[in-house]
């Protein structure tokens, strides 16, 4: 056969073979689409089921971030104790009977003093003795929170007293007080003393009767949802901080941190303020850095390398605010809540490393002696 003949043959065959081919295409197309729909539906259905199962298991089977939330408890306790200690000498001047001039005794500015449960500090303002007793009691409770002693009872009592104390004076409050109140309220649902606490120690020595499966699962559920709510709270706070700032010229023009650092109230270390605002590019890095970090915080948590950057960044951001702007306790309460973003594995390995260092130093000490 010469090639031409083959060609002709093929041409001849074409008109004959095309109708069955078209039939085949239509039928197969319909069935292909049908199969595709079935497949995609199945994939969606399976994925949904797998997602629901994952969420269900995640919520019910174990408690997440137990070390992180324990660190949050410890740091919030230290915040409360530190704030009370720092203000102890001037407590009657700025919170007690020396401060009645601010008008909040007669007409509270906050809603809380008007709620019976939160009224003790407010009603005690004009009585120095009772006020001081309550103040010391609150300090004692904050120590118990740090130690994690009978936390299920101590934490709510501490919280009521704390809110009563801090809300009795609205004028001197800051947003750290709100974060503190909301965080501890959410923490009622979580197991904050399962790690690094007296409660944990006691449970190890005398293990409690194992709770029923249902109780265990419900307790895991509340704990994990509490952690989720706390994560959402912090992420929203940072994100909205960035959104609020984005509209302001000093922020977008990259010199915003200069302004407050030059005031008396928010530049409590004038020499350091001058140091940090002297070189223009540094001012811009600090100003833009805070916005970018706040805006990206939630998303940066999603993968490990960016999470490390986000957490290191936000820690320096808060240390900067705490030291340079004279807001140590505001900063510490924000740092406290950020602790839940460090995974249990990391906290655990930190603990192991520290305890191995401790035992090493003990060994070398015994060897020397």
């Amino acid at each position, binding site marked *: 056969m010469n090639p031409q003949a083959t060609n002709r043959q093929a041409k001849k065959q074409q008109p004959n073979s095309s109708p069955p081919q078209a039939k085949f295409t239509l039928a197969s197309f319909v069935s292909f689409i049908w199969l595709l729909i079935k497949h995609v539906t199945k994939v969606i259905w399976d994925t949904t*089921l797998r997602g629901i199962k994952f969420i269900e298991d995640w919520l019910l089977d174990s408690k997440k971030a137990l070390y992180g939330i324990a660190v949050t408890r410890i740091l919030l306790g230290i915040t409360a104790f530190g704030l009370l200690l720092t203000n102890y000498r*001037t407590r009657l*001047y*700025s919170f007690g009977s020396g401060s009645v001039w601010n008008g909040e005794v007669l007409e509270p500015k906050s809603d809380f003093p008007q709620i019976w449960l939160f009224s003790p500090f407010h009603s005690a303002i004009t009585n120095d003795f009772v006020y001081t007793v309550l103040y010391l009691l609150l300090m004692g409770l904050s120590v118990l929170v740090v130690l994690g002693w009978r936390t299920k009872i101590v934490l709510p009592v501490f919280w009521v007293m704390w809110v009563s104390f801090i809300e009795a004076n609205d*004028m*001197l409050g800051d947003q750290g007080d709100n974060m503190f109140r909301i965080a501890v309220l959410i923490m009622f649902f979580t197991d904050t003393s399962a790690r690094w606490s007296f409660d944990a120690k006691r449970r190890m020595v005398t293990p409690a009767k194992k709770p029923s499966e249902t109780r265990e699962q*419900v307790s895991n559920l509340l704990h994990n949802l509490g952690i989720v709510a706390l994560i959402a709270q912090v992420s929203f706070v940072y994100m909205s901080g960035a959104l609020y700032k984005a509209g302001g010229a000093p922020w977008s023009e990259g010199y915003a941190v200069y302004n407050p650092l030059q005031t008396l109230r928010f530049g409590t270390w004038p020499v350091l303020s001058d140091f940090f605002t002297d070189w223009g590019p540094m001012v811009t890095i600090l100003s833009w850095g805070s916005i970018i970090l706040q805006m990206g915080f939630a998303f940066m948590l999603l993968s490990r390398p960016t999470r490390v950057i986000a957490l290191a960044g936000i820690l320096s951001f808060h240390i900067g605010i705490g030291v340079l702007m*004279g807001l140590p306790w505001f900063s510490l309460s924000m740092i406290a809540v950020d602790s839940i973003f460090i995974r249990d594995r990391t906290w655990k390995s930190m603990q192991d490393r520290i305890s191995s260092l401790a035992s090493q130093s003990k060994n070398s000490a015994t060897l020397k002696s």
Partner: protein
Amino acid sequence: MTEKRFKRRKPLVRIAMTLAAVFTAWHIFASFLWIAPYSPLREVVPGNMLSSYMIPMFGQSWSVFAPEPINGDYKFKVRAIIDSAGETVTTEWIDATEVEISMIQYKLFTPRAGIQSSEVSSQVKGAFDKLTDDHKVIAGLNYFKDDWSNRLEEKMKSYGSPKLVDEYIEKEQQALAYATQVAYAMWGEKNVIQVQFQASRQNVIPFAKRHDPEAERPNVKIAETGWRGPIVRDGQNNKNFEKIFIRQYKKVHPSTQ
């Protein structure tokens, strides 16, 4: 596929899980709307459901240092007309902010007492600035004789905007009650006849001019208010104020000891 087979769980647990998850979702959504800047998205929650859920327990506001961070100092000065051995004398101005700020300057752990006078000044200056020019003139006059407080309020209200006047009067009373404490501490409770405060704001040197050796801080803006009678609120313990204020004053002005 075993991985998508659900574990056996009690229906009670699943019901509890669903309810708790739905409630958490609502809480998170409400928090999102509340924490984020105000937006039309809030309209998806009917009525005042959002604020009645969030307030007071979850009350918060995160527009800190935004959109423009503070760029000035609020100061509060006090002077008095006192009875000094039978003679009426007008004292020097005392800078209460200088005294209190020294409690937080170069301190790692800062007591809140250090910001009181700046806060008082910022509140009363803010309310003063909102007044009309007519009101401001009245505020600058002296009111200290019988029933001065009511007469001042009436006079101001005769120029309209009663809401602004109410706000201002409230802040002025607070500022006066604070000024009275400063005056009592400095010159003695028995001697003080009248007090006057000066709430002011002065901006910092603008960023662009920070290296300019000629640069000076912008002018001080003062809320001009007249002489007033002293105000002491029920339950106020003057001694507790005096003790701390004077101790701090002596630290700032060691020569006066």
